[in-house]
């Protein structure tokens, strides 16, 4: 199954995102956003490739993307 993921770049690689994007792509990730100020890269990957992604040098953490959902606009508590 394909999964949307958020990759947090390790502090040690904060200034070298281009290299990391190449390594992530080769490890099977389809990169959709490179947020260089935050040091975060988003995209998607097959479940089978997740372990390989986590050990790419420069990766601090790989997490499945969170989904948030507000209550409907007519709810009392928002």
């Amino acid at each position, binding site marked *: 199954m394909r999964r*949307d993921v*958020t990759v*947090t770049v390790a502090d040690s690689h904060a200034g070298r995102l281009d290299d990391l994007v190449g390594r992530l792509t080769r490890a099977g990730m389809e990169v*959709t*956003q490179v*947020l*260089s*100020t*935050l*040091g*975060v890269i*988003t995209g998607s990957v097959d479940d089978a490739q997740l372990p390989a992604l986590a050990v790419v040098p420069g990766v*601090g*953490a790989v*997490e499945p*993307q*969170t*989904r*948030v*959902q*507000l*209550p*409907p*606009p007519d*709810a*009392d*508590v*928002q």
Partner: protein
Amino acid sequence: MSTGPGEQEAQTTGRSVVAFGDDVGGSRDLIGETLRSIAGIANVVLASDHRAGAPEPDAAAGAEAIVFDTLGVALVAREPSALAASISSAGAPGAAIVAVEPERVMHAIAVEDTVAAAQFADDDAFTWGLRATAVDASSATGRANRGAILDTGLDFKHPDFAERSVTARSFVAELSARDGQGHGTHCTGTACGSPAPPTGRRYGIAPEAEIFAGKGLDDTGAGTDESILAGIEWAITNGCRIISMSLGADIVSTAYETVGRRALAAGTLIVAAAGNNARRASGERGFVGVPANSPSIMAVAAVDADLRVADFSAGDNPVEGGQIDLAGAGGDVHSSWPLPQRNNTISGTSMATPHVAGIAAPWSQRADARGQALWDALMQGARSLDLPPADIGAGPVQAPD
């Protein structure tokens, strides 16, 4: 720590507090050498030799002097008058020691300093939330401060925002930044709405702040990290000092903690809703969710108009950063709503959050503070209540005078 009337008889310990001049104060060697040469004090303990920064009581017990070298201060086991005499007879350079004072006995600040709960209500001039957070008595407007609201967008045609500087961007595919839900317009109204709305009471806190409206949630109120993180990056690169996020999920995340830390370092404070998963009347305290449960993201709880913890307002959770930091007005909050309705009154930690974000703008304006300094100013300015910090943190946020 002022000495007010009736405190002239403050107890002293017989020891002296010595303040060193700037030339000496930063150097442990120079402080030690100064104490040895002028007062013959050899048994000196350096606070910075201890891991926690303060010497353990046992190690400090036999010392003649404890040097807090990062503060440029030493606690010396000599009577102040005797020590002052030694200094003067040694002819010590005037700049080395700037003050010798008696050490006073300190007492914990008494509970009377906390304010008893009060009742607030909307009136003709202000919402209860602006009364309870002292916005009604503040002259600060948040002028020249950029603040971002990452939410469902904004109703640009709403009269509250027609004359305002608004920069908007959508991070949701195939949708403009227009608010088709209402939540984002309500939160923006609280944080940045008009000082004098054409009808009814004031609910806007920072009417001269520059609004950055980022649509990270679609018109059903749903969003993903993909869009929210992009909105945070956009706000930081645009120089926003504050990001208000009235959103969350019931999990913990490494990404948001790293993001909060990097944002603070870049001078941007992220404020987030603690969450509405408590049912206090049924004994459930709930727990702070992502992203508010990150140590570097400020978690905001909700109080009601009686300054009680709102029934739905999540309490702390045991993860690092899972504590509540501040509270805002979150029960029956009147604010902007997309036309034609114009206004709406709803409740939630989502409504408490823009009270904190809005009040951060005048604090930033007043103290020229950003990042961690802005965080500290907000925390120190909070109103102390006799309620558990696990539920309201430092207490309800307060505007500067």
